[in-house]
């Protein structure tokens, strides 16, 4: 049985860990002090790079690489902490804010020290009132203890943290939408490039980092790179010669919900399989797994054929899905995938910022098509083609071959792909919200097509048995060829 590996969440449930005194008893701020005492800023940046830390907010981009794009000669630079956690199925940042806010502050301090940043904005999802209250209180304490403000602990370092509540828009989690919103404008993502690392908040270089990503920093500094890289697999990227290491190091706060017996946040090493994860979460509630959403509602769905997929950045990308925010939703045999897609599409149609044409008008259109299918009004046409053969009367003649064409399914796929094409991974939108829409739409439809067809045929939702509802991998290009990445160590 796989065990949880609590690092970020180790002291989460210690009473009053949200206060400075208790946090201090559990090594609080010692990692930051160690950073100040033992390392130059560049050393820290190098350590983060070596640790292989990948952003936990969704894109899974190497944090070290992101830092290296920040021009060091432009002042001021900003750190923007993305605490807008609003991806459906994701709820791990929230616990950090509510229960252990000093950990985030320590992470922020280390990042600011490494990058020479003096101002940090924490953009907190508007609904997280408790989280914001706790963080604000912790920030106040940190100021009082001299960990924030001017000339921190007599090192000449200045760091100020400002918290900013969102107003309830999912798109303000997208880093440039967040920046616009932070600047007081409509939360609409910007065109990229320039990326925030070059032109972010107030058009100055800005590091945007998820809460969980920042919370990893104290442990990388405190325990060292080697300790950190031992957790999670490092794969070999064989596209280059010689192969380069592709680290999926560290732990991940997996938010497991849906049909499991003990839903919640589990901190586990990266690289566990779906099956293992379900086990950790108290096992499946129900008879069999029908589907798993591996990384928040934007991620393409996995079928019961893919339960051995390892839940890390690389493996999921190879499975044509993504780890995203680590929001894992398990569905058992009673769930109807069409209904499930409708739920998700309603969310996206509501949350599209409306800035660019394909997403503004395509997303509600996709929703409407799914709605029509759910309402039992999905369209199909039966066409009859002339075919030469033995007719009923035993003579040679036209036997009339019929074929059913599920127009609405083709339309659904086409409209979604016109927003963002999941096969070529090209999008005509400003931000990748577009792909977050078409990924679920197309993957659900391709992988569970029988259930969609049944809904149209029967004129109502029909929940098929798992085996019948799922299209096997061999027959469908929605699946990547089954491919387990090799670990770098195995290669050596």
């Amino acid at each position, binding site marked *: 049985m796989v065990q949880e590996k609590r690092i970020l969440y180790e002291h989460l449930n210690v009473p009053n860990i949200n206060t400075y005194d208790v946090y201090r008893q559990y090594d609080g701020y010692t990692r930051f002090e160690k950073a100040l005492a033992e390392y130059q800023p560049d050393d820290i940046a190098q350590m983060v790079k070596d640790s292989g830390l990948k952003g936990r907010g969704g894109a899974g981009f190497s944090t070290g690489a992101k830092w290296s794009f920040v021009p060091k000669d432009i002042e001021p630079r900003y750190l923007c902490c993305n605490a807008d956690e609003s991806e459906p199925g994701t709820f791990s940042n929230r616990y950090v804010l509510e229960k252990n806010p000093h950990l985030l502050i320590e992470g922020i301090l280390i990042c600011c020290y490494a990058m020479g940043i003096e101002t940090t904005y924490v953009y907190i999802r508007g609904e997280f009132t408790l989280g914001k209250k706790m963080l604000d209180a912790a920030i106040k304490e940190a100021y009082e203890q001299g960990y924030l403000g001017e000339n921190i602990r007599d090192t000449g370092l200045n760091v100020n943290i400002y918290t900013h509540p969102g107003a309830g828009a999912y798109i303000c989690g997208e880093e440039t939408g967040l920046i616009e919103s932070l600047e007081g404008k409509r939360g609409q993502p910007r065109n990229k490039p320039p990326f925030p690392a070059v032109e972010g908040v107030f058009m100055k270089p800005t590091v945007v980092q998820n809460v969980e990503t920042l919370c990893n920093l104290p442990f990388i500094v405190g325990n060292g790179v080697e300790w950190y890289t031992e957790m999670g697999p490092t794969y070999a990227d064989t596209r280059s010669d010689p192969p380069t290491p592709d680290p999926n190091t560290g732990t991940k706060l997996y938010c497991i919900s849906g049909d499991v017996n003990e839903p919640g946040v589990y901190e586990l090493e990266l690289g566990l399989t779906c099956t293992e994860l379900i086990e950790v979460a108290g096992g499946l509630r129900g008879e069999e797994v029908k589907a798993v959403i591996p990384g928040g509602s934007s991620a393409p769905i996995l079928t019961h054929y893919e339960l051995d997929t390892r839940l890390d950045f690389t493996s999921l990308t190879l499975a044509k899905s993504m780890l995203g925010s680590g929001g894992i939703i398990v569905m058992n045999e009673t769930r109807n995938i069409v209904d499930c897609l409708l739920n998700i599409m309603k969310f996206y149609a509501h949350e599209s910022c*409306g800035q660019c044409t*394909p997403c503004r008008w395509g997303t509600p259109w996709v929703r*409407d098509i799914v709605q029509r299918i759910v309402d039992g009004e999905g369209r199909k046409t039966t066409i009859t083609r002339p075919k030469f053969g033995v007719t009923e009367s035993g003579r040679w003649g036209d036997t009339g071959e019929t074929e059913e064409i599920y127009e609405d399914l083709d339309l659904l796929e086409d409209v979604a792909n016109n927003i963002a094409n999941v096969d070529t991974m090209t999008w*005509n939108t400003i931000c990748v919200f577009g792909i977050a829409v078409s990924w679920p739409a197309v993957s659900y439809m391709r992988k569970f097509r029988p259930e969609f067809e049944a809904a149209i045929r029967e004129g109502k939702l029909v929940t098929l048995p798992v085996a019948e509802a799922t299209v096997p991998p061999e027959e469908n290009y929605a699946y990547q060829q089954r491919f387990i990445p090799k670990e770098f160590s195995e290669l050596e």
Partner: protein
Amino acid sequence: MAFIKLNDLEIEVEDGTNIVEAARQHGIEVPHYCYHPGLSRPANCRMCLIDLYLRSSEMPERQLATGCTTTVRSAPPERKIDGKYDVIVRTDSPRVIKAREDILEFLLVHHPLDCPVCDQAGECDLQDFSYRHGHDKSRYVEVKNVPPKKDLGPDVLLYTTRCIVCTRCIRFCDEVSGTGELGLINRGSHDEIDIPRNHAGTPIQLLDNKLAGNVVDICPVGALISKDFLFKSRPWFLKKENSICSGCSVGCNVTVEYKEDGLYRIKPRFHEDINQHWMCDDGRLGYHYVNNDDRLQLPQKRVEDELVTTQWADALSLITEKISEVESNDIVVIGSAQATNEDNFVLQQFAHDVLKTTQLGLFGQQLGEEHKFPQFTIEADKNPNTAGARTILGSANGNVVLEGETLWEKVAGAKVVYLVSGVPERALDEAEKEALSKVDFLIVQDILPSAVTEMADVILPGTTFAEKDGTFTNSTGWVQRIRKTIDPPGEAQSDWLITQQIANQLGGEFEYSFAGEIALAIAESVEGYGDATHQKIGDAGIKLA
């Protein structure tokens, strides 16, 4: 200069040009909605997608790029593609063509397609691009959004259903007028352009600034509509002529759109150094006096204190008679800052060569207010040709032109005054009124009955900027052409032609037959105007040294 390959053309373009403009310069259309050369570039309509080759001529970049935000620059030798191109662009690849079709399909999802009753039909980018780049049918069968029609301000209506949310109008109000009245409300497919309102929905600010009319021009579809033009005409029935706005001394380049029965609308025309893409609403909506039913159509003379209409011959002989009776010192001739250089030149020659008077004055619209916007200024001088009139009237007179108090002093002491006005709605102040009332014989050449014509002994019907050819000189020294659109009403005539007839009755030998001929004479005799012939001025104008 950057050397780029655009489809199969090899072209040179200035560094910093974007692909939409580069293509336009070479006759290739890259359809677009949100991009406007005078505004910032949000790249939100996604219509101008192009294929970009940055690394090799074999493989384009994975993502299509937006042509409006992709600017070309000369690259260092090692970064050139195939050793010579700075970038390779394709606007005709299959996936670009498909992307355009897809975007157009999305644009029409909620669009009402009420072209038959839409003012924009015929000059609508959505119609045109759909026709050239779109699908022939829609696959959308659901219910369309029907947001309410909105009255945004004094002249602008929003047919919200037709809006494609390109945000050009918002950006105009933010960047050019700086007034910021427009914004988006709601989100996603419910995005609507709106003005600020309170919770009850009552507007707290209207789209009421002097540049507001420009949003109608830049709206690529029929969403923003001018009330002034609403349902007046189909655009394809209108004739168009390039001209200059007569509203103030900025001299905005405009297109006058008209039919036989009058002017229908005035739209700005691009001029880089003068008005860029814009014009103000005073100029845009100020043309109505041209169509006014009260326009002076026949000469009039005063008979027993009543003005009665008369024949041209009668009016001219009456004038000749009166002028012959007085000394040249008793005559004051007043030109107009609303009249063209040509009008004023003939007047000047008449005064100088025939009447032999040095008492030449300048009349015009009263000083108004200046309005400054971040990217536009409306000047206080509400005449289009003050600078030109001053130079030309004074050109044979040691540059002395009577204006203001000195002018009215002279007028008060004169026996005959020949006043060319042409100013629409000119009020007179007390001093002016008093001076004019002292004149024995007042000849007024004007376009509309006014406080000035009320005092006249003879009224001669002249023409507006829309009814004649000629040139105006703006406050920054640009000489630009106005062109005749409609015929003048009744028997009204070009101002220079009237002056020429009076002059010839008094022994002058003027033989001008069209305005261009006068411009040649100006070029010969007026300092600085050497190049100001109609041919050389053309549509772009020339700037005086």
